[in-house]
């Protein structure tokens, strides 16, 4: 398969983790943070992965890690590869990629604001991006309690009922069945 061949070529150059093949034209691979930049440049300049589709993060709270995913696309061969980097959650910092893809600067601003992952030297990374006057921990972190924050910050209207859809519909449709 295409992705397997690409993985083998990359594996010869960088210490890669396991290859996760999601589809025939979509695969993910994990690599250490210091090898990310050469791998991105390699994929962009030599393998035709010229398009940064997205840069996103996952908060692995239990493992104390942030996972960054750089999803790259090769338009001519219609396939995507995701590079995953695991960062320690405490003081998470990653080298900026805005000079490889200018769009990365926008993603990095968002990640800085929503997850608190720092990208030093990325343009405008310390400016407010979406939130204005935010005064708590970054809201996409999983230890941020959004319900508690909402109850503390905003006046809730009394009398709101919330039902579990499954049990509610069971009671409505089959009241005498268990």
């Amino acid at each position, binding site marked *: 398969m295409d992705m397997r061949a690409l993985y083998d070529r990359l594996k010869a150059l960088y210490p890669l983790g396991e290859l996760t093949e999601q589809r025939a034209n979509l695969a993910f691979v994990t690599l250490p943070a210091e090898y990310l930049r050469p791998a991105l440049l390699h994929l962009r300049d030599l393998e035709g992965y010229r398009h940064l589709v997205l840069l996103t993060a996952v908060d692995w709270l239990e493992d104390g890690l942030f996972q960054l995913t750089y999803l790259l696309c090769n338009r001519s061969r219609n396939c995507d590869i995701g590079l995953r980097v695991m960062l320690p959650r405490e003081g998470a910092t990653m080298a900026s990629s805005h000079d490889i893809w200018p769009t990365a600067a926008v993603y990095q601003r968002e990640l800085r604001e929503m997850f608190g992952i720092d990208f030093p030297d990325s343009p405008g990374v310390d400016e407010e991006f979406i939130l204005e*006057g935010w*005064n708590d921990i970054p809201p996409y972190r999983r230890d*941020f309690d*959004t*319900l508690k924050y*909402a109850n503390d*910050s905003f*006046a809730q209207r009394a009398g*709101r009922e919330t039902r579990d859809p499954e049990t509610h519909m069971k009671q409505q449709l089959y009241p005498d069945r268990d």
Partner: protein
Amino acid sequence: MKPELMKRMVKGPDGVEFEVEPMRDYYCDAPPTVQHGAYIKIVEDFFNWARSQSLWILGFGTGCGAIEMRPLMTPRFDAYRYGIQWRPTPRQANLLVISGYLSVKTLKRAIRAYEQMQNPKYVVGLGSCTINGGMYWDSYNTIKCLDQYLPVDLYITGCMPRPEALLAGFEDLKKLIRAGQAEGANQYAERFDWYKANQKQVIHDWDMPDYNW
């Protein structure tokens, strides 16, 4: 505070230097006042009838509900039949429709837009998000209860309300106006400090004057 809001010297195109203090120069420094009715009830009723026949909506979509206003303002549902039309600026509008969820960031703009509208003015909250937060009830970034921050004259329920529901809601608003019960702007003036306190409680970077008109 943002640099463009600071007091500073500006050089005009004619070479004259002058001082600009944006937080003071462009705004009124008096709180809103209650507008009393006409001297006799029949005249006030006539005014209210006239007001109810010209609802000019500010074309400001705050959330997903704004999508329902497009079929409403175009021939499919054609709200113009009922004397309702959309205007591009707050100065020309007298009805602010909060169309769906309102994030704290948008609330700031909605307050400015509302305060820049001229009396008599009305607020309609559209959809469950404005009533009790709707599906965003536990969101960190949207207000849950619109009437804490702006004086709401009428709520239209639904998620989202269809254009028919909006038309029915506007007819109800007309009835309220004709009955002299759409007094939101006066409530805002009467309880101005309470509204401002609520607004400042959620807008942490308050970088605008208290009186935005």
